């Protein structure tokens, strides 16, 4: 539903386009922030401008400083140097005035889960002094706008991730703000709701509102009017996304016609070429970014086709290129025994929590040396499936087999051939890096010289030298994930379970992880991985799309894309495919009902 500009009568008068161009709504100058006890500064000399009527993307991996910058803008904390001005008010001294004109939606918006949608709105309206007739009108508008009219009486805790974000947005919009700050609004939201949310916020721009949308998804960045790209507290780029893409224009190519079973080897080979700066697997193609002035290296099979650069290519370029294609981790491993039996098998796996069906009849098989991905939004049932496979949850019915065994009752010897990396960081934060490595290697029965060799190798591969004596809990995020991966593979497992291994890390670390995973798979390791990054799923041999607990489609990335291919959409992305298949599944469900 179109959100008419006149819905914000106050806004149209101020902070809008003048003859000289749009007036800046937020001006950040030389902003620095150092947290006490923090190793590196959270923000270093940031200059940025946010304009009214534009969508500004605040882009970067976890720990880049996005939330810190947003909090500084609303005056929730003060910088160590530099200044922030919002609508002419100084954020350090006039935070009250800024709150009057700003809507801020933090990452975990403070919705009261035990209050209904309407009660939550009422509460925030009270806090914002929106009263009387104005309140009723505003509620009407916002409920209509966010499409929550039907759910007024529902408890906020019972809303889906997407609806929660919409309600959070409605609460943030209550005070008729001129500036809207959204901290990772698309996290935990399924792709369809994500698109809806994006569309809603875009409509607000027409009313003259300035919006800052912070995100770790680089594909979202591409759609913003302007982006501020942060990495480890440093601004890498500021401007329209198109100009950033210019930096890699003409350097991105796809190798097509590479043999299916060969693409990982081809990628490894290509990444070792001098001319290649970065490369990824994209379904059956291999996509590379060349160094400046370089030409495409020769291919044994297939041909090079120029591809449109994406934001991630540009980001990697800005960071100085990818990590190379060699995995010393995989090189140190022995080739795993060949078998034509399925290594991982799920049969009608179902899990109910009370009335709630978290996973329904999930069936799949994974062969030796295959990467199988479970792809879906948060809360779709990926982790639940995963835990049932690892024997951490008892399936309500159905069976899970790993190497022919139920892990819940498997022997110690069988479990020592499994590697498991949990979704959130779950090493011992109060032990240092070396103690963690020692503990996990000891836990898997390594000892003596072999243990020492393996630990040394992990330290060298993952660059942990500088951090050996540091408590694992205070490591930078990328190193936490590296340490977690190291701990889960030190015993050279045959089967590797990775639950969101790259969640929140920067693209370079993600590349590095996938280099290791690809290398291990070439040695015959079987990998099961969950992810909510659509692009990351391209590395998988096969994917299961998980939506509302159901496996709605299984196949190779290309098969899945083919299922969604239409005349209107000849080259669908995995996200397009996901959305199409979800819509089909919804339609089928409604048809059946």
């Amino acid at each position: 539903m179109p959100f008419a500009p006149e819905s914000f009568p106050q806004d149209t008068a101020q902070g809008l386009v003048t003859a000289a161009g749009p007036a800046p709504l937020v001006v950040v100058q030389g902003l620095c922030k150092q947290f006490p006890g923090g190793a590196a500064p959270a923000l270093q000399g940031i200059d940025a401008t946010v304009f009214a009527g534009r969508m500004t993307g605040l882009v970067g991996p976890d720990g880049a400083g996005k939330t810190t910058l947003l909090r500084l803008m609303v005056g929730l904390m003060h910088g160590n140097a530099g200044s922030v001005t919002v609508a002419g008010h100084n954020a350090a001294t006039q935070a009250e005035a800024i709150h009057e004109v700003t809507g801020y939606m933090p990452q975990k918006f403070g919705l009261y889960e035990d209050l209904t949608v309407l009660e939550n709105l009422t509460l925030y309206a009270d806090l914002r002094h929106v009263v009387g007739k104005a309140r009723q009108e505003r509620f009407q508008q916002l409920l209509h706008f966010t499409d929550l009219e039907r759910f007024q009486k529902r408890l906020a805790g019972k809303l889906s991730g997407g609806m929660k974000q919409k309600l959070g947005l409605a609460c943030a919009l209550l005070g008729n703000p001129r500036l809207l700050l959204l901290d990772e609004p698309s996290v935990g939201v399924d792709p369809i709701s994500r698109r809806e949310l994006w569309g809603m916020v875009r409509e607000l721009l027409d009313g003259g509102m300035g919006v800052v949308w912070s995100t770790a998804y680089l594909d979202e960045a591409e759609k913003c009017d302007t982006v501020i790209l942060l990495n480890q507290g440093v601004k890498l780029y500021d401007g329209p996304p198109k100009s950033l893409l210019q930096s890699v224009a003409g350097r991105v190519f796809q190798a097509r016609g590479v043999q299916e079973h060969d693409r990982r080897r081809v990628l490894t080979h290509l990444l070792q070429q001098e001319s290649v700066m970065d490369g990824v697997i994209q379904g059956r193609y291999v996509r590379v970014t060349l160094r400046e002035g370089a030409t495409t290296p020769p291919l044994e099979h297939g041909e090079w086709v120029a591809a449109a650069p994406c934001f991630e290519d540009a980001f990697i370029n800005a960071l100085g290129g990818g990590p190379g294609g060699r995995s010393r981790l995989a090189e140190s491993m022995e080739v795993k025994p060949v078998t034509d039996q399925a290594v991982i098998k799920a049969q009608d796996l179902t899990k109910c929590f009370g009335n709630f069906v978290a996973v329904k009849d999930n069936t799949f098989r994974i062969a030796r040396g295959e990467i199988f991905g479970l792809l879906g939004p948060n809360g779709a049932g990926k982790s639940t499936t995963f835990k049932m496979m690892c024997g951490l949850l008892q399936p309500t019915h159905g069976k899970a087999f790993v190497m022919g065994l139920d892990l819940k009752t498997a022997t110690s010897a069988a479990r020592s051939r499994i590697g498991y990396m949990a979704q959130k960081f779950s090493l011992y934060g109060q032990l240092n890096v070396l103690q963690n490595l020692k503990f996990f290697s000891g836990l898997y029965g390594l000892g003596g010289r072999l243990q020492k060799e393996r630990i040394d190798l992990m330290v060298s591969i993952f660059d942990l030298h500088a951090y050996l004596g540091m408590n694992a809990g205070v490591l930078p995020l990328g190193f936490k994930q590296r340490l977690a991966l190291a701990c889960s593979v030190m015993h050279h497992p045959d089967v590797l379970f990775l639950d969101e291994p790259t969640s929140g890390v920067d693209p370079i670390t993600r590349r590095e992880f996938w280099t290791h995973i690809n290398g291990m798979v070439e040695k015959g390791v079987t990998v099961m991985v969950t992810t909510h990054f659509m692009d990351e799923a391209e590395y998988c041999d096969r994917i299961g799309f998980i939506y509302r607990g159901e496996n709605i489609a299984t196949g190779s990335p290309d098969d899945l894309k083919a299922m969604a291919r239409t005349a209107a959409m000849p080259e669908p992305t995995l996200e397009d495919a996901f959305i199409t298949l979800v819509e089909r599944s919804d339609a089928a469900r409604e048809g059946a009902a």
Partner: protein
Amino acid sequence: MIAFFRRIRALIGKELLTLFRDPKVRIILIAPPMMQLFIFSFAATLEVKNVSVAVLNQDNGKHGLALVHRVAASPTFTRMVFVQSQAELVPLLDEQRIIAALHIAPDFSRGVESGQGASVQLIMDGRRSNAAQIVSGYITSIITAYSMEISKTSGGTPPPALTIERNWFNENLIYLWFTVPSLVAVLAMLITIMVTALSVAREKELGTFEQLLVSPLVPWELLLGKTLPAILVGFCEGLMIVAISVTIFRIPFTGSFLLLAATLLVFVISLVGIGLFLSSISSTQQQAILGAFVFLVPAVTLSGFASPVENMPHWLQVAGLVNPLRHALIPIKGLFLKNMPAIDVWANIWPMLIIAVVGLVLSGWFFTRRLE
């Protein structure tokens, strides 16, 4: 087999590191029990000292005065309040400014002299029942002593029976001799339960428990790895308090040290069983702490430390048999004060062994039972 020892070693090493690596945790393990030992020993006493008593002496004779003098001379009654009328007594008692009032009637001396006998009235503050009883005992014994003296000097017949008091094991009824040995057990219990209750719950909360469950550790290895470090910590803590009791508080230790060590060890093992059980049914540290308190408070109050077990209703006495502190207090006090023989110590050790086995088996079973 080698792999088994490596796994156990890794797990025990990790447990000890989590407990002793952080200086803050180290201090928490040592400082509060020591402070509690000193504070409880001096403050948590049931002895009646420094009490105030009111006297309403309406008698003008010498006997009334003599009696008042004797009460006033007792070191227990540090403050005497002399009142002139019954009406003055009421607010004093009401506001708890005195614990007892001694009322000597106008005809007291006359009654004594005439040989017909006389009585005094003692009014007590029933709200402080325990202290009141003790005060009543003190005053009664003063009065008895005085009446015996009178009958002796007046040449009357001595009373037919006399009580001669003799306190065994603690001749001077020094209260510290009772509290400090009990505190050895109480404080060892506090620290052991807290350490173990948090151990699994912390791992569940942080997600590391799942890492352990998917590892090659089998349940009983996990149990062993969790149990041994906790036993070590609780046992050492107990021994440390024993050492302080003997050296600083000068509590006589008359029994066998080996028997005391054995009692402490079995006691701590039974506590580890309970603590791990609490931990294995909690999913967060907060729940574990709540669970620990739900266990600790009744365990201490119903153990016989604060009030005699015999005073409790029969069914509670039976139910209280599952409380390891109740079993531990008897031999620990016994070994300190009366050189308890091995056979009597054993009579209290085996119930704790049963509690230990049940607790450890239950927690082991809950370990393997996955979250849902």
